[in-house]
């Protein structure tokens, strides 16, 4: 079996498993519902990260999505399409929260630290300065590029799986990820350019002049 066929089979197996879990959850199987959420919550968090506003807390939005999963799963039309449904729920939650203009204290949650937070707090939340800078650069990307990049980063999801989630062709997903990386690289080079210029302009330190004597 070739690489592509093996990946397709793997995706189908996962879809079938998810469809089975979703169907069981729709019938009221609590353990299936919990397993379904555990299976998907990390990439759902990545979607929320891609679409939420800066002031919103990731764990609060996750709670809302989890609540919607509990209360609305029985309305899911196709159990095999639970990923796309969860993505829609997550995006709606992020947008609704942004529209509501709710203000929350920055220190309440982990996983999302505003730029104004002290460096010590960012480290406490598991994000060093470099990680924070990279996430900030990702936040500058247009959403169509940001989301597939985050989905690839969080769980190494294949282009086909991301395409199924976002309803995009696999080739489009791969192109957007590549472009997103190029934009981040260009932005990093812009940010690092002043430092490089300063280093290039600094006078050379004392060193060996001429050859060895003796």
């Amino acid at each position, binding site marked *: 079996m*070739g*690489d*592509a066929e093996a990946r397709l089979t793997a995706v189908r197996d996962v879809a079938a498993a998810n469809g089975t879990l979703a169907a069981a959850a729709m019938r*009221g199987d*609590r353990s299936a*519902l*919990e397993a379904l*959420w555990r299976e998907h*919550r*990390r990439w*759902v*968090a*990545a979607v929320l*990260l891609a679409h939420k506003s800066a002031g919103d807390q*990731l*764990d*609060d939005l*996750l*709670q*809302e999505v*989890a*609540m919607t*999963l*509990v*209360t609305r*799963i*029985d309305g899911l039309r196709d159990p095999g399409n639970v990923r796309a449904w969860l993505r829609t729920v997550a995006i709606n939650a992020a947008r609704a929260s942004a529209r509501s203009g*709710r203000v929350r204290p920055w220190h309440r*949650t*982990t*996983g*999302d630290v505003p730029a104004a937070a002290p460096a010590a707090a960012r480290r406490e939340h*598991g*994000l060093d300065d*470099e*990680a*924070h800078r*990279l*996430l900030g650069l*990702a936040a500058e990307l247009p959403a169509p590029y940001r989301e597939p*990049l*985050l989905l*690839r*980063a*969080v769980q*190494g999801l*294949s*282009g086909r799986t991301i395409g199924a989630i976002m309803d995009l062709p696999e080739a489009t997903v*791969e*192109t957007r*990820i*590549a*472009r997103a*990386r*190029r934009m*981040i*690289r260009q932005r*990093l080079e812009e940010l690092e350019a002043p430092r490089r210029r300063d280093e290039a302009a600094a006078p050379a330190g004392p060193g060996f002049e001429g050859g060895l004597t003796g």
Partner: protein
Amino acid sequence: MNERIEVLISRAVDGQAATAEWDELAAAAATDPDLWRSLALTLRDRSGFDRAVRAAVDVAEAVDVPAAEAPPRGGADFARAPGPRHRLIVPLRTAGWAAAALVALAWTVSHLAPRLSGPPRPVITSNLSGASAAELLSAYLDRGRQEKLVVGELPERILVDTQSAPSGQGYELLYLRQILERAVVPDLYGVTGRDELGRVMPVRFEGPASPPM
């Protein structure tokens, strides 16, 4: 660097590239040695970025599916029906003034009920035998309107709970029906104060001054 090469590099650093794609990349690198530098930089960027994203979403590990009995976090108030079944949660967001008005009305009515309803009347049962609950409710609404007690029933019914029907076909619904009734009271009190022992103290509502003659 053209976009096709960028996509190949991106798939290569993600471990998604197939053998043919690696061959294509190697062939392109034969004429563009800078391609390997781009690959290395992309790999470095990806490593740091993936680490950052995974750290940021680690919070998801602490978010579980809410239990049926536990109230949700966040600012909304929800009504839940008990039992280990799926719930359709109905938000009952009430502003502070509305909640206070409900409490005030309950307190006032409970204190003034004997004056409102008068002495207890004997229950008339002769015309009720054989009538269904729906018929009785309809009769109550009609009679209530005549007596100026009932304003009407709100068309919106609040769904509280759903579950599969006992017969196995269809669904069983639990819902609230809302009937608007009118009451005329001599005094109105608000529950806004507490005495030194912390007991709720009603405060009499002073209505607007009468218009000048």
